[in-house]
């Protein structure tokens, strides 16, 4: 009988990623509803200490040198026999470059259904429902959490990082992995970001620009504004893809998550890939001419005007005072 709520822990460069805590928060909620145990799965090379603040009933730690860097092959090879021997009630992976490489593969191998783009769980009487957001955030889907086993890929946004951190160190069971035979994916090197560029994840004020910006020279307005407010400019995916800002300024799923005091979103529609990276902001002010843009559901304040007009007005205002 499948049991347990499993959470696949993600880590990079010696630290547990925020998404792992969000998943633990979600998993703990699910565990409470179902009366199941919550088990964190940690894979790596000599990183047992990372398990210290994971809020879980148990941590299964798989140790092997080949697990030093993420490889989908290595992870699948290690996890598959474990899942086969201990099928979960629910397996939660991140809707990320790590989780998405694993969740679907495992699910297909064992014939488990998959819930993608899952935001949160909720209870309706006796049943547990998943809530997913699809189509760029425009459609919400609710459904019954499949039984007996289900694989879930979770997007951040509904649970806070703090909710996934435990006060007490969990029970850690170490699995010494004998060998990894079939890893055909090897790391050559990590490509570092431009040294000397701003780390937007540490900024207190961010002036974010999106597709609503028609012209690269409108960026100057954004930079002027950011400078005046003591912050930095960042952007959503389309702006980086066009080469108007370097990749280090990308806010979103493939970029950085940010937690500024104020996030000014100019001409950003608010697709989940972007908004999931701004959930830890204190105040979001969204400026967009489309009143139906999903960003207005995330923002505390909204302005239904043209981005360039507002940036110009703000710059003028600041200059005069």
């Amino acid at each position, binding site marked *: 009988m499948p049991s347990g709520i499993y959470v696949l822990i993600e880590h990079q460069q010696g630290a547990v990623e925020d998404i792992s805590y969000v998943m633990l928060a979600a998993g703990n909620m699910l565990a409470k509803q179902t009366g199941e145990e919550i088990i964190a799965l940690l894979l790596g090379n000599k990183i047992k200490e990372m398990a210290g603040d994971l809020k879980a009933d148990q941590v299964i730690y798989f140790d092997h040198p080949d697990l030093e860097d993420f490889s989908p092959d290595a992870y699948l090879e290690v996890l598959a026999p474990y899942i086969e021997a201990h099928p979960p009630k629910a397996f939660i992976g991140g809707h990320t470059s790590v989780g998405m490489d694993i969740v679907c593969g495992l699910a297909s191998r064992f014939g488990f259904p998959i819930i993608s783009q899952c935001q949160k769980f909720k209870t309706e009487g006796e049943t547990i429902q998943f809530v997913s957001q699809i189509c760029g955030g425009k459609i919400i889907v609710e459904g019954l959490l499949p039984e007996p086993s289900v694989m879930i890929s979770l997007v951040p946004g509904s649970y806070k990082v703090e909710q996934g951190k435990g006060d007490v160190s969990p029970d850690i069971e170490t699995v010494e992995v004998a060998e990894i035979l079939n890893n055909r994916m090897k790391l050559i090197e990590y490509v570092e970001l431009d040294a000397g560029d701003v780390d937007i994840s540490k900024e207190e004020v961010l002036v974010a620009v999106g597709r609503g910006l*028609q*012209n*690269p*020279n409108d960026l100057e307005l954004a930079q002027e504004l950011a400078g005046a407010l003591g912050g930095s400019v960042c952007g959503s995916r389309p702006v980086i893809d*066009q080469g108007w800002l370097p990749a280090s300024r990308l806010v979103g799923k493939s970029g950085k998550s940010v937690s500024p005091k104020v996030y000014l979103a100019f001409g950003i529609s608010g697709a989940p890939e972007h908004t999931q990276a701004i959930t830890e902001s204190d105040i979001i002010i969204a400026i967009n*001419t489309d009143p139906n843009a999903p960003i207005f559901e995330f923002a505390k304040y909204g302005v239904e005007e043209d981005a*360039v007009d507002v940036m*110009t007005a703000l710059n003028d205002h600041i200059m005069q005072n």
Partner: protein
Amino acid sequence: MDYGNVQVSESVNQAFMNSIFAYPNGSRMRTCIQCGTCAGVCPYGPWMEFTPRKIIHALRMNEFEEVLKSESVWMCISCFACANACPQEIPLTDVLMARLKEEMLLAGNIPQELQDALENTQRYGNPMGESPRKRGEWIKALSPAVPLLGRDHQSVDVLWYVGDYASYHPAAILATIAFAKILRVLGVDFGILGSLENSDGDSQRLAGEKGLFEMLADKNAQIFSKFQFNEIVTTDPHAFNAFKNEYPKLGINFPVRHYTQFLADHLAEITLMLKKEIDAAVAFHDPCYLGRVNQIYEPPRQLLRAIPGVELVEMSHNRSNSLCCGGGGGGMWLDGYTWEIAETRSSEWRIQEVVPAKPIEDILTVLSPTRKVSKKNGNGKTANIPSRRILAVACPYEKPRFEDAKKVVPGAGNLEVMDIAELLADSMGL
């Protein structure tokens, strides 16, 4: 080509030349005297590695491949200044430059902004990527509703072709609404196509996408022929140009007039309705595709002169010498590209020209030395200085471009940019 026993395959250079000669006036390229007037009059000439003259020179030197390696053709906004000035009447804009752009485009060598506009046109029938179903949304601001062909009517006197920017862009929609009100108050039997309307494709053609233009022309022809109407009236000079000059080349013939021509025909009627005084000095900006390309200069001026209180002022670059707003034929979608290189915009030059270097009273005295003193000022000493300064436009590209340019030109603060339709509607109290 056959040189006795030697077979020489057609070079890229020769192939391009032949493609130019295939056009009705293309062979005039042979008569280029390399005077360089084209480069001199071009708004972005200084930043063009290969001006029209240099392209022709390269072709003569069998060095066309060098031209293809350069991206400078994307500085061309297809404003027709060069073609208009060329003493040899070579079709520079819509044959030479457009064909060169087509070559670049076929090779996939095209600025991203333009690519987006063209892909959007292919998919949505408009370059902005807006939903075609929302093309007629602007009519919701009016009551009673604007008649929709297809839904309400099959047959009207006037088919009003609205156009892309006039349907979707918030700044341009104001003029669209003004014109709708004028048509209604004149009792014109008209209708619009709403979501059945597709881009006329003229600017896309000038940007090199001949295939796309032909597809749109075909589509439009099919849709137009479902309805009965006596003429097309359009608020968009680009559409006007397409329907008047380009569609007939594809065998598609519909009578068409620009809205200023249409309204000028009703001038007597309109004049009676122009009740409210508009106390303004008004400079009319001749749109490239109405003025220079189609030589329509008077009807817009007739309309403006009819408005009480309006003092019509001519700018030095007027009529066929008008300065393009930068929208040109495809210039709208090369804006980021040209700005990166030139760091200035032709729309800004136009605004600089309008914002007077001298106080307005001096300008007005110079321009009309015989002006009488107005009865308004009881002391009889000072001439009546209009309280407003307005740049009047008649093309949907212009308002957004001039509004933007205003923000960067010093002294342009109180300059207003208004479409002729808006001014008329205002004076008519609509």
